[in-house]
């Protein structure tokens, strides 16, 4: 097993592999030095951990890894919108408020990428390019950049996932100043999510898809209210009625199960989020 050959093979399809592994090439020496000390059997495991680092797809365990996890998701969102604005002519109806809205969201996602990159410094994962992603999710959303409704449906899934992903890391950031920054990003994602949902429903004029700005109960009492069964994992657990042991449904007159579900947005674990994000990363 020749590790250098493997990396060279990867480099043919991913020219930035060395930068991804570590922005400073010199640091790759550490990896090779480490390799010398390992038995052959242990190599695949060690290699795996390096790739996980490269792509920010590890389950976060500390503040730095939470920020890299967030950075991965922000790259995904940024490229999704940036391509729509810059490289998908006719997708967003010209001359409508949608152009400004999607551009605003794209700009926020870019600002989040830059903020997280800056905060992480040389600990940041290497930059992820548009070509790293597959926003058709292997063909499940084949018309994502030609059908405006598909685009909005995927956008909603990304924004709701983003809100849930940040929430899921709150515990690891507890008491840290970084928590406030994460919360400030988190609620911006929630504003985006509500707006995308409002756009899907037809905006002020109505007449669109039956979704509310907040996550409600899905059909037949399910957790997915988006009307898109393919994104069920995005809404897993959203139909929760109990908070810290307190049942919300019926807590006061008029608080139905739907109201209880709408009142609290649920978190997703990193494993759940990475599984969702993985669908949009090229295989």
């Amino acid at each position: 097993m020749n590790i250098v050959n493997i990396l060279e093979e990867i480099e043919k399809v991913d020219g930035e592999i060395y930068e991804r592994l570590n922005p400073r090439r010199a640091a790759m020496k550490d990896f090779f030095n480490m390799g010398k000390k390992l038995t052959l059997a242990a190599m695949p495991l060690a290699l795996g951990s390096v790739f996980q680092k490269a792509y920010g797809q590890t389950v976060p365990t500390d503040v730095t890894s939470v920020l890299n996890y967030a950075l991965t998701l922000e790259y995904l969102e940024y490229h999704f919108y940036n391509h729509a604005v810059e490289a998908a002519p006719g997708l967003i109806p010209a001359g409508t408020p949608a152009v400004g809205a999607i551009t605003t969201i794209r700009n926020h996602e870019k600002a989040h990428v830059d903020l997280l990159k800056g905060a992480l410094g040389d600990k940041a994962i290497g930059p992820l390019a548009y070509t790293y992603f597959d926003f058709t999710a292997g063909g499940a959303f084949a018309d994502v950049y030609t059908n405006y409704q598909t685009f909005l449906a995927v956008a909603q899934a990304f924004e709701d996932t983003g809100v849930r992903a940040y929430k899921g890391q709150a515990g690891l950031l507890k008491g840290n100043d970084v928590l406030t920054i994460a919360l400030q990003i988190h609620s911006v994602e929630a504003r985006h999510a509500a707006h995308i949902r409002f756009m899907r429903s037809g905006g002020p004029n109505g007449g669109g898809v039956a979704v509310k700005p907040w996550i409600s109960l899905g059909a037949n009492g399910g957790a997915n209210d988006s009307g898109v069964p393919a994104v069920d994992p995005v809404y897993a657990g959203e139909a929760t009625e109990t908070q810290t042991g307190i049942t919300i449904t019926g807590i006061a007159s008029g608080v139905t199960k739907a109201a209880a579900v709408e009142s609290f947005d649920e978190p997703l674990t990193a494993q759940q989020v990475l599984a969702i994000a993985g669908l949009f990363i090229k295989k």
Partner: protein
Amino acid sequence: MKNLQQKNEQEEQSVFNARLQRRSFLQYAGAGAAGIALIAAGCKKDRNFPDPGVEGVVLDFKDDFGVLNYAYALEQLEAAFYIQVASAPPTDFTAAQKAYFQDIQFHEIAHREYFKKALGTAAIGSLEVNFSAIDFKSKASVLGAAMAFEDLGVAAYNGAGVRLKDTNYLLAAGKIVSVEARHASYIRDLVSYGSFADLTTLGPLGADNGKGLDAALTPDKVLPIAGKYVKTKINVINL
């Protein structure tokens, strides 16, 4: 939870005692310094609990219950506002707007009741509100007030999260703040379609458009703004 409650009661007693000694009731301004003075005054033994002399409610930020009571106070305010709107919406609200304001009303009631239950005996009393500045017949006035409440709510939760020590309460606050942000987004879109996340105008509440960051304010900044709509005196200590 039970331990936390007991501990809280004990500590609260000592604070009340201290307050009796000093006859000093704190307002938002200067609460920090005065709070330190109160603690320095120490725990003289004079078990009059609850203190009949306290005017209004006390938000004691020494522990999570203080933060939860702070959230409870804000949710009381929001719920009262939306109950009034939903019971008699402006006549030019569309059917869809009436329905969504009903939704929001129940969300805020659910939040209020959640905090009341979570706090148990540590909960502050009911706040008396003052909405004299709002014209409930005017769509513009109602939307303007709703926007102010929601943006302030987002800022308040974002700014107070770092104070929470219990992971479960932190998560609960996180679950609520994103719903408040969804409300804010929707109401802003009604005021001006496309302004759902206008972080530039949210600058005074601590937002930073260049960094893509939403509003965040510490309680000492939030309470004077919210206080304009509350008749009940809100005393703050240990902030």
